[in-house]
């Protein structure tokens, strides 16, 4: 009866609930889980961090480049020797903290020291910004500073400004870290000043209490109920408000942003139709198309699509003995029917890819590599080459360590509530079962799935990954330094480590293209993960909002630039 009642309720006509025009309610499929700026590791925490804090530079899709944010202008670079470069920034003179004190180069130096302080969760920062070796403050201008970076590529210069600047006045009011230089801090774990700072920082528990860290972004945290909602309030007086014509990066219109965590896509769609949500990004294709065709929904909603740099992957845990060899991973990849999955889950609107570079980036995409084909026959051949033998009962075994034979039986993990992930898992399972490979589906709630991924407790995992067209640093994702941080598959090899390092320091575009193509070739063989397709962002937004600022960068829209419609636009 309950089932029937639920179905009946879900079929009822949506009713609009009372809303305030100043509060923009945005759908999230997952909770940010932690909001410590040092540990940003998922799209939701990335989105909030960019509203609470500012970094020196920020990606701008329209300009296809990194643009100044807290920096006054693009950095000036100067090469030093054959392996270093100086990257000089000047901070905006208008930029201030919430207490009115100016944001100075000293704050940047402090942030870099925090990002290198032993005892803090700095693994991700180290993997991404470990190339920043030192900072030199300008004695004449307190807003000017120079970063000493390893590598001479333009990518390194761009990445060097992509971390949130932290307030020294709030975290270290005594300036205890000023006496420790940046190169020395990594080696100074035993220094009392650093140890005391680390203890103070850890005691703040910023992962759960981000409100204890005042940022220089336009919003502050109003409330956060993990797994339910998170509300940000616009600062009454934000430093960028004084700019006469603020650039897009420094605009912040909504007075309040409320992110509603609704993991289940069908429930989120219902909430949108009932007027309980204003923005729903990454909507499943079938739901999106259905709403587009509904006259009543078209009256209330606007629909947007944008080519994204987000791609769906099936990740192999290479720590598992059965998935350690590339041939097995290749074989299993041939059991994924990508064209049919695109048709079923994306209504045919997605772009298959040979690897993690988007086919839209023609200069770097390896278009000579063949796309993945669905071929159980080829999978069988590859399994044979990987020394797997079919047993009389139809299963697969090969000699394992010692005398114990290794059985090919897998689990495939994915986020519960996401229909496209489930479709991929079920398709893979049926194709594998036809070959005699048992596959068990594990649909887990997002926070539990994240824990399992970090701990390496999975065989195969379906997850979305997002890139951008500005930088090609795969260190967090695929380098040995990123294992346990962003590299969930546990894959690394001397060749790929070397290629990743060469790509980020490549100065010549032709050389960079050559290296990226080689990297794609190697990854197509190694397959720590298989890229299924690059998807489109499908966003449905309430008509009570103005034109939604849509972007191809994660999360597909710019929340801080959402506006209510002007009278002119309504007319």
């Amino acid at each position: 009866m309950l089932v029937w009642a639920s179905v009946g309720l879900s079929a009822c006509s949506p009713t609009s609930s009372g809303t305030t025009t100043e509060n923009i309610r945005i759908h999230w499929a997952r909770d940010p889980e932690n909001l410590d700026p040092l540990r940003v590791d998922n799209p939701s925490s990335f989105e909030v961090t960019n509203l609470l804090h500012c970094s020196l530079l920020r990606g701008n899709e329209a300009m296809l480049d990194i643009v100044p944010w807290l920096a006054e202008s693009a950095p000036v670079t100067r090469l030093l020797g054959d392996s270093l470069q100086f990257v000089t920034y000047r901070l905006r003179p208008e930029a201030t903290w919430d207490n009115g004190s100016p944001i100075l180069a000293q704050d940047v130096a402090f942030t870099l020291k925090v990002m290198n302080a032993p005892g803090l969760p700095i693994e991700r920062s180290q993997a991404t910004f470990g190339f920043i070796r030192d900072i030199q403050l300008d004695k004449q201008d307190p807003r000017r500073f120079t970063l000493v970076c390893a590598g001479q590529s333009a990518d390194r210069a761009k990445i060097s400004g992509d971390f949130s600047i932290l307030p020294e006045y709030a975290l270290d009011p005594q300036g205890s870290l000023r006496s420790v230089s940046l190169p020395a801090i990594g080696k100074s774990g035993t220094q009392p000043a650093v140890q005391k700072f680390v203890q103070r920082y850890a005691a703040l528990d910023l992962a759960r209490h981000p409100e204890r860290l005042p940022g220089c972004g336009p919003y502050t945290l109003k409330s956060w109920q993990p797994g339910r909602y998170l509300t940000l309030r616009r600062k009454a007086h934000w430093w960028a408000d004084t700019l006469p014509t603020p650039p897009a990066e420094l605009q912040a219109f909504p007075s309040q942003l409320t992110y509603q965590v609704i993991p289940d896509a069908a429930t989120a769609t219902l909430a949108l139709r009932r007027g309980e949500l204003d923005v729903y990004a990454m909507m499943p294709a079938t739901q999106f198309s259905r709403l587009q065709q509904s006259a009543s929904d078209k009256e209330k909603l606007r629909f947007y699509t944008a080519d994204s740099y987000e791609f769906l992957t099936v990740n192999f845990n290479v720590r598992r003995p059965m998935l350690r060899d590339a041939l097995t991973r290749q074989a299993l990849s041939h059991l994924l029917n990508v064209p049919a999955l695109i048709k079923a889950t994306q209504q045919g609107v997605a772009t298959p890819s040979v690897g993690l570079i988007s086919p839209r980036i023609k200069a770097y995409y390896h278009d000579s590599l063949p796309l993945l084909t669905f071929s159980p026959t080829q999978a069988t051949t590859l399994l044979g080459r990987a020394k797997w033998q079919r047993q009389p009962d139809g299963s697969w075994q090969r000699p394992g360590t010692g005398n114990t034979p290794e059985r090919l039986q897998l689990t495939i993990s994915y986020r519960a509530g996401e229909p496209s992930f489930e479709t991929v898992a079920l398709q893979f399972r049926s194709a594998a079962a036809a070959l005699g490979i048992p596959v068990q589906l594990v649909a887990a709630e997002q926070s539990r799935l994240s824990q399992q991924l970090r701990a390496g407790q999975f065989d195969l995992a379906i997850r979305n990954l997002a890139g951008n067209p500005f930088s090609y640093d795969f260190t967090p994702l695929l380098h040995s330094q990123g294992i346990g941080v962003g590299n969930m598959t546990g894959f690394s090899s001397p060749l790929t480590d070397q290629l990743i390092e060469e790509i980020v320091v490549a100065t010549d575009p032709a050389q960079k293209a050559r290296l990226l193509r080689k990297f794609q070739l190697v990854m197509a063989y190694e397959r720590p993960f298989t890229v299924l397709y690059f998807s489109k962002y499908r966003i449905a937004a309430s008509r009570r909002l103005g034109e939604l600022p849509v972007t191809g960068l994660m999360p597909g829209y710019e929340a801080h630039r959402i506006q209510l419609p002007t009278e002119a636009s309504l007319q």
Partner: protein
Amino acid sequence: MKQMQRFCQNWHRALALFWLTSVVVAALLATSTVLVPDLLHTASPPFLSPHWLGTDPQGFDVAYALLQGARTILYVSIPAAALTLLLGGALGSAAGYWSNTGLRVARSWWIASGLLVAGCIGLATQLYAAFLVTSGSLLTGCGLIGWLLHQSTWGRRPWAFPIDALIAGLIVLLDSIPLLVLVLVVAAIQQPSAGGLVLLMTLTCWTTPARLMRAATLRTRELAHVEAARAAGLSDWQVLRRHIWPLTWPVVMLRLPLTIALLIGLETTLSFLGVGLPPETPSWGRLLAGIRQSPAAWWLILWPGAALVLTTLSLHQLSRKKQ
């Protein structure tokens, strides 16, 4: 008029039996191979070749999914119903037969049991980490203490075990929490396997059979022939087996169809909410849940809904006839 009524009842019963037999036959004949989704025809409407009952949003054929869902009912709901009746019946019999004073246990074993429970609570972490070693040590230690105490006269003196009050308390506790909420909370913590779901349903649904069995046992144990059997020196086990259960089991067996219907509904609801069986296990509830992804796909409501309603009505019909 009576004949007409009887004819209708027989006719209903025949229909119910026919439907339930069909479900069982369908479940037994259903293919056990993993279904292949037709990704080119997802949420496809019925009456079109080759998917005559349509497909779900994942591209699975609804007809095959219905058949495999019937097998899930056979393998999950019926064993769960049987275990529920067994557990409820056993606890209800014990509560009704011994009441609060009939079951007497030596003090030594009371103390050993208390220590065992306290040890389990105190060493919960160690039990989770190394179950065999810790539980073995606990059992051995408590057993030894119990044996040592049992050597003394004080230890051998019995204390009454208030089994009736304990079971009645458990029934009240379980009944005070809505069944669905209780099962949902447990299932949400850890998605159960098929075996786990059977266990979960058994542990949460035994209260009604237990209450019935307790009442029937209380009534039966006062009968003259039971008193005579006791007076003749038969053991409790013999009295229960030979003189009480033959009279009380039919009461619980009456409950079987209704319990199966209840558990089918519960399993369907859990699968509909996505916290029941693993996603790869076909079930009618999962078919119904497809409507949330494709609200226009009426066939995802009609076919599994009709199967569910007919099965439940048939079970109720059987139960009525038995009464």
